[in-house]
């Protein structure tokens, strides 16, 4: 297929359609409206299911119903809408059925704003809804990567009977880039042994997330955890740039990782031995790989568009053995490459210290910079 200029949200919608999406349910919210709008035109013309729900609560529960039927189904939303969907996500996790969530983050908390943000890392990676479960979360850094990860996300969701989430921000959702979309694949409805699609010539099936006996709920939780451990063992994805010999290891995901790559290249042009580690699966988080990189680096620099949510996972991986520095912009602010470059220059110049919380020094620098 030829490379064409596509807006991120539309490319994601069309990519999902070409990956065999059978049903989409959603509700308008900026900055992901173009996904809903694209689906509203394309899905009916292909004879597939589309409903603009009355709210995100309705949308996620329509997804829940369609997922019970065993079809490839998705929804998309942005921060406040994702908060409303947490109820349904928890039920879907507890029912052990697959779905895809496209989560286009914006500034928060509260109504916040519609600017790009990574402030919902904890919300989606650490659960969000009630109960013990883990969504599989993939964080693309470009429109092409988002499109490429859609079939991967569907396959992971269906293989592990898990929620898969494509986690991006408004900048990837709304920028236009050259993209090669996948060819159209036909809809293939799988014959799942659990799908509730009418008990014709077979035993009846029940899909539920209720296990009134704690013994049964414990078994269910352990079953979820066992599958999660398999995901952790087999499905870790990340990208590494210039990491051989790197003394400074920058770590960032999604848009922050992409901007950091520009800064890393500029710093290397100045002779600084710096590389970039960009997790693609932020859940499961690649703890072991971060620990390996930390063991041979002088310092790690975590860059995020939040106040240090992934930083906590990096600290967990490093376990106090290597100095960690942090640079973040929050509330919908996006860092320029120059800002990250000066952080790389600073940490390579200074003698970094192992501190308890790198966020405290960052706050002091932020206070000085914003005044």
């Amino acid at each position, binding site marked *: 297929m030829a490379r064409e200029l596509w807006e991120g949200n539309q490319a994601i919608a069309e990519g999902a359609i070409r990956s065999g999406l059978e049903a989409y349910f959603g509700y308008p919210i900026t900055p992901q409206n173009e996904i809903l709008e694209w689906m509203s035109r394309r899905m009916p013309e292909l004879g597939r*299911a589309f*409903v603009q729900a009355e709210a995100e609560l*309705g949308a996620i*529960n329509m997804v*829940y119903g369609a997922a019970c039927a065993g079809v490839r189904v998705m929804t998309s939303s942005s921060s406040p809408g994702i908060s409303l969907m947490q*109820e349904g996500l928890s039920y879907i996790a507890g029912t052990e059925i697959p779905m895809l969530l496209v989560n286009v983050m914006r500034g928060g908390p509260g109504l916040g704003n519609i600017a790009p943000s990574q402030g919902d890392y904890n919300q989606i990676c650490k659960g969000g809804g009630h109960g013990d479960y883990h969504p599989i979360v993939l964080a693309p850094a470009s429109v092409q990567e988002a499109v490429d990860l859609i079939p991967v996300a569907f396959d992971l969701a269906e293989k592990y009977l898990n929620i898969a989430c494509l986690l991006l921000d408004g900048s990837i959702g709304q920028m236009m880039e050259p993209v090669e979309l996948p060819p159209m694949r036909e809809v293939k409805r799988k014959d799942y042994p659990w799908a*509730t699609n009418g008990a014709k010539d077979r035993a*009846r099936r029940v899909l539920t997330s209720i296990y009134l006996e704690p013994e049964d709920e414990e078994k269910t939780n352990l079953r979820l955890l066992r599958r999660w451990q398999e995901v952790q063992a087999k499905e870790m994805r990340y990208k590494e740039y210039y990491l051989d010999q790197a003394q400074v290891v920058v770590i960032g995901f999604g848009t922050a990782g992409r901007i950091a790559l520009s800064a890393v290249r500029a710093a290397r042009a100045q002779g600084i031995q710096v590389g970039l580690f960009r997790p693609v699966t932020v859940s499961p988080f690649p703890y072991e790989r971060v620990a390996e990189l930390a063991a041979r680096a002088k310092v790690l620099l975590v860059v995020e568009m939040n106040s240090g949510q992934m930083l906590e996972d990096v600290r967990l991986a490093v376990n106090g053995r290597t100095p960690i520095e942090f640079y973040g912009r929050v509330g919908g602010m996006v860092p320029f490459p120059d800002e990250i470059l000066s952080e790389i220059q600073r940490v390579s110049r200074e003698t970094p210290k192992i501190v308890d919380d790198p966020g405290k020094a960052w706050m002091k620098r932020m206070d000085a910079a914003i005044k």
Partner: protein
Amino acid sequence: MATIAVPQNLVYERPDSFTDTPTHYCPGCTHGVAHRLIAEVLDEMNLASRTIGVAPVGCAVFAYNYFAIDFVEAPHGRAPAMATGLKRVLPEAIVFTYQGDGDLASIGTGEIVHAAARGENITVIFINNANFGMTGGQMAPTTLPGMKTTSSPNGRDVETQGYPIRMAEMLATLDGSGYIVRRSLHDPKNIRLAKKAIRLAFEVQVRGLGFSLVELLSTCPSNWNLTPVESLKFVEEKMVPYYPLGDYKVSPAVSAAKI
């Protein structure tokens, strides 16, 4: 099950659409009657093998244990949305929700109103027993003015706790509604009328004529602190006057179908 020696003596048996499972409902509760009517209709219309039920959160949370068909269990109030998802990807299937008044008239008002407004081709069986049964008898949107519950201990004061919602009348105003009626389960005659309405609601769905809902006035002896017989009397004397029985919406398409 025991087999009957003389078949012509058979007056009552378990519908095929039921599993052989005793229900968990309290003595005198009419949930069992409502379940049975649905099972009889599924048998008569030969729909069991293509029907998917959506259970609510409430006393009927375990409805799926009693029907010998595919079933899913929805979050509180969201059954119409789940049913929408199922029906949209399985248009040949028959999808019904079974919801109480806390589920449908309180937390799930958004879902039920919009499922009806879309003319979603599903069937809803709505149990109105004027309180939250499963959680121990708290006030519901359907609790009668002055009625005592565990969260309106001095009787529902409409000045501070609002007025009951008549769901059938409200949903009947929507153009997407095909068939909206209210029946009662307080005596054999009304139970027979309720079954006819349930049959018609499923016929509406089979013919693709839009959203159908049967509201059933029901008893809750345990939480009402009445005997089963007193409860039936309460429905007849207190609930029917506030929630009049009748057909609130029979769309022109449903009338024309002459089912």
